[in-house]
């Protein structure tokens, strides 16, 4: 049973399968992973159906077979993310798309699990982690991550939809009313003043979040389950002002490149 999956390790050592919230399964990405051949064969290798997330599946199988996992912090690999936006978004879409299948492989019981963001203190450092806080028995499987931006996006879309409906059915422009409703809901329930949403919305990271969420949702529907997954970023820590380091090489390079283009 998956309660939480994480590869977010703060310190070197044996990887703990259990934490204070119950059982969770950490994993090592195949971008850099060493494994004994006998253990790889004993759990049956990678699941050929999982085009992404096969590393999560393998690590869960290893931990269910009571194998020992170690995280080595000094060993480093530099991974290149896609530089083109379309390729990057495609990559994150497919990261999300196969997660419901991993969930289905290891979770047999029906029901919807709700996860909530929680701040955890590890050696004086705060970081965000998802923890389970509600389980509803239901006739299909589901997994819902409650994050800040999921309600924000949903209510934003709802407000646009209400504007559209108002425009079509009644012939009135309900844009201001719907946006007022949106901001009202956000202030009351989500705390928009703390989130600095405008700062959030100009980001590539937000696009990646949305695409990741959408990939998980579509993949879940294909498997007959409700799967709403989100990233755990603390939006209240965002800052609006750009503090650009003038002495930085890459910034100078970009400026030179732009000025050469103008000529």
């Amino acid at each position: 049973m998956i309660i939480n999956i994480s590869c977010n390790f703060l310190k070197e050592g044996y990887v703990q399968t259990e934490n204070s919230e119950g059982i969770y399964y950490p994993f090592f990405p195949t971008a850099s992973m060493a494994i004994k051949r006998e253990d790889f064969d004993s759990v049956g290798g990678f699941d050929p159906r999982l085009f992404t997330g096969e590393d999560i599946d393998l690590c869960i199988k290893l931990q269910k077979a009571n194998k020992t996992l170690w995280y080595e912090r000094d060993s480093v690999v530099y991974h290149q993310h896609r530089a083109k936006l379309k390729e990057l978004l495609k990559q994150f879409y497919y990261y999300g798309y196969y997660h419901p299948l991993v969930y289905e492989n290891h979770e047999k019981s029906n029901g919807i699990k709700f996860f909530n963001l929680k701040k955890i203190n590890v050696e004086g450092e705060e970081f965000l982690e998802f923890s389970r806080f509600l389980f509803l028995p239901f006739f299909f499987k589901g997994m819902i991550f409650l994050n800040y931006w999921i309600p924000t996006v949903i209510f934003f879309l709802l407000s646009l939809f209400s504007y559209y409906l108002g425009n079509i059915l009644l012939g009135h422009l309900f844009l201001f009313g719907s946006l007022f409703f949106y901001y009202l809901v956000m202030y009351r329930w989500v705390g928009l003043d703390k989130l600095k949403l405008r700062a959030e919305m100009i980001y590539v990271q937000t696009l990646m979040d949305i695409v990741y969420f959408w990939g998980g949702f579509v993949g879940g529907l294909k498997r007959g389950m409700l799967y709403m997954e989100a990233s755990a970023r603390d939006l209240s820590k965002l800052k609006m002002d750009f503090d650009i380091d003038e002495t930085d090489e890459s910034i100078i390079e970009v400026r030179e490149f732009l000025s050469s283009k103008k000529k």
Partner: protein
Amino acid sequence: MIHQKTSVIIPSINRLFDLRVLLHSLGEQTVMPMEIIVVDNNSNTYYSVILEEFPHLQIKLFKELTPGAPNVRNRGVKESKGDYLVFVDDDCICDKYWLERILAPFARDPNISCVGSRIESSPDVSTPSLRFAFLSKALKNFYEKKDREQAHSTAFGIFRGFLNKKERCIK
């Protein structure tokens, strides 16, 4: 020695340039693996150039027609002979001590069956986009992270360290 019983398995599809960057970094490792298995997933590119380009590495090249990374990796495992399997992606660049340090825990504790390592973000080598470098720099300032090890936690942790990498914009 463990590194003499190690097979490094690299799946690759249409990414010859990145693969060559990776193989170059593998050639500079402090310890050398027994074999490096490159499995080409039916790509259009002419992969056998790497055999001529890196004659000092024990590269074995295979071609897998079934699509999908897990099939390609399983094929690589099937063709390999080492007792220890090390997986690395073709869009990665390895640190000089990467292989030595990822194999060290096996020697320390025989019970350990799987070792993971740190994965940092690096700028794209094959398509150096200055706009992206600028944006990522801005993102880094924006998030104002104290420690780069304090990764962005996600549900599945895939955003780890995506933004808080110091070397990200340095070429």
